[in-house]
């Protein structure tokens, strides 16, 4: 495990067996950092109710990336969902996704929305990008606001931990988990036209799972 207090080795969580459909692609290491231009990090920011598993993740792109999103159609949508839907309404690109685990920031009203805006603006400042290019995802206990002070004070270390190496993707995939028993991260390489292209991703989820996203 790392000597740096609070940065728990990502070995603390096994990786899910990825059951990748067959096709003209090959699986490669790297998850969200496999594609060119992306970096990621996952650290312990003191957000989880208990334990010191990483709980704060950041995925960044070196350039303005074309951005798309799909969001729950649950009417009691969490603040980060409302915020991201607004961002993708006004902007076609994005530069970063901040993800916190521990508190869902759902059913938290105007104060919860304000927390989301503040966290996004703080990341934008540290990355020297426009505030509307930072998207946010949250997961955890519904009804609880984000531990904002702990989150904001962890951001400099999170940004400093960003790397395009596989470790960045692996630690981010652990940091977004809640009741998951395994982390979920995958990347593939294929040819689009005459160019080698990579597609990667990470996900979390184990309970309250019946997505109806649009």
């Amino acid at each position: 495990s790392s000597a740096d207090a609070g940065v728990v080795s990502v070995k603390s969580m096994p990786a899910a067996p990825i059951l990748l459909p067959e096709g003209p692609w090959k699986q490669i290491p790297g998850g969200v950092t496999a594609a060119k231009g992306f970096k990621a990090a996952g650290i312990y920011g003191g957000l989880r109710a208990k334990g010191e598993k990483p709980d704060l993740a950041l995925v960044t792109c070196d350039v303005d990336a074309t951005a798309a999103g799909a969001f729950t159609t649950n009417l009691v949508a969490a603040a980060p969902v409302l915020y991201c839907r607004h961002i993708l309404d006004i902007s076609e690109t994005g530069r970063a996704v901040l993800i916190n685990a521990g508190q869902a920031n759902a059913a938290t009203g105007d104060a919860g929305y304000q927390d989301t805006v503040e966290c996004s603006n703080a990341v934008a400042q540290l990355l020297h990008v426009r505030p509307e290019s930072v998207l946010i995802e949250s997961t955890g206990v519904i009804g609880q606001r984000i531990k904002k002070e702990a989150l904001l004070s962890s951001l400099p270390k999170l940004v400093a931990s960003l790397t395009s190496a596989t470790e960045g993707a692996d630690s981010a995939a652990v940091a977004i988990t809640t009741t998951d028993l395994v982390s979920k991260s995958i990347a593939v390489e294929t040819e689009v036209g005459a160019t080698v292209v990579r597609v990667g991703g990470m996900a979390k989820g184990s309970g309250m799972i019946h997505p109806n996203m649009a």
Partner: protein
Amino acid sequence: TMLGVMTTDASVATNIWREMVRKSVSRSFNQITVDGDTSTNDTVIALASGASGSTKISSLESSDAQQLQACLDAVMQGLAKSIAWDGEGATCLIEITVSGASNEAEAAKIARSVASSSLAAVYGRDPNWGRIACAVGYAGIHFNINDLRVSLGDILLMNNGQPLPFDRYAASTYLKEAGQIHGTVNIDISVGNGHGSSKAWGCDLSYDYVKINAEYTT
């Protein structure tokens, strides 16, 4: 809650990328279920950097778009299946394949209806074809009951809408072995001769699911 972040270095126009992501989500994350609870936070964010230097994709009909779509579908399905595989208290992944429907959307609705049934039978290692047929029946999709075919792994349980005699011990052993290795139970369903097919994924409902969630307070 499920969260996802997808990244690619392909170059894609925004409106095309947003349509591709929507389509992939409908074939992956929107086709999984663990407990039937739709979260307040479910989100997938997908970013395309264009840093590969590929030609910018500006039409869904182009072969480049179709190649990238297939790849994006695979990545999202791989992740979606890992979520269902890791369902709280689950001992196995259940993959439901539906064919013979009028179109992909109808097949998807039937597949998800079966995946969404608590199907506690799988946890009990009970090849309960009746519950599977019942979940097909309440999916809200019209089909001719005489076309219904249900198999569990390689074991045919119903054909032409008629229950068949089958080796109950072999069928139960199939379920038991899947649970022992946290493997996959395949349920294949056909509802006619249409071209529509789709998949959905779920997991078995165990005592542990109830225990985990009885202690998870707001």
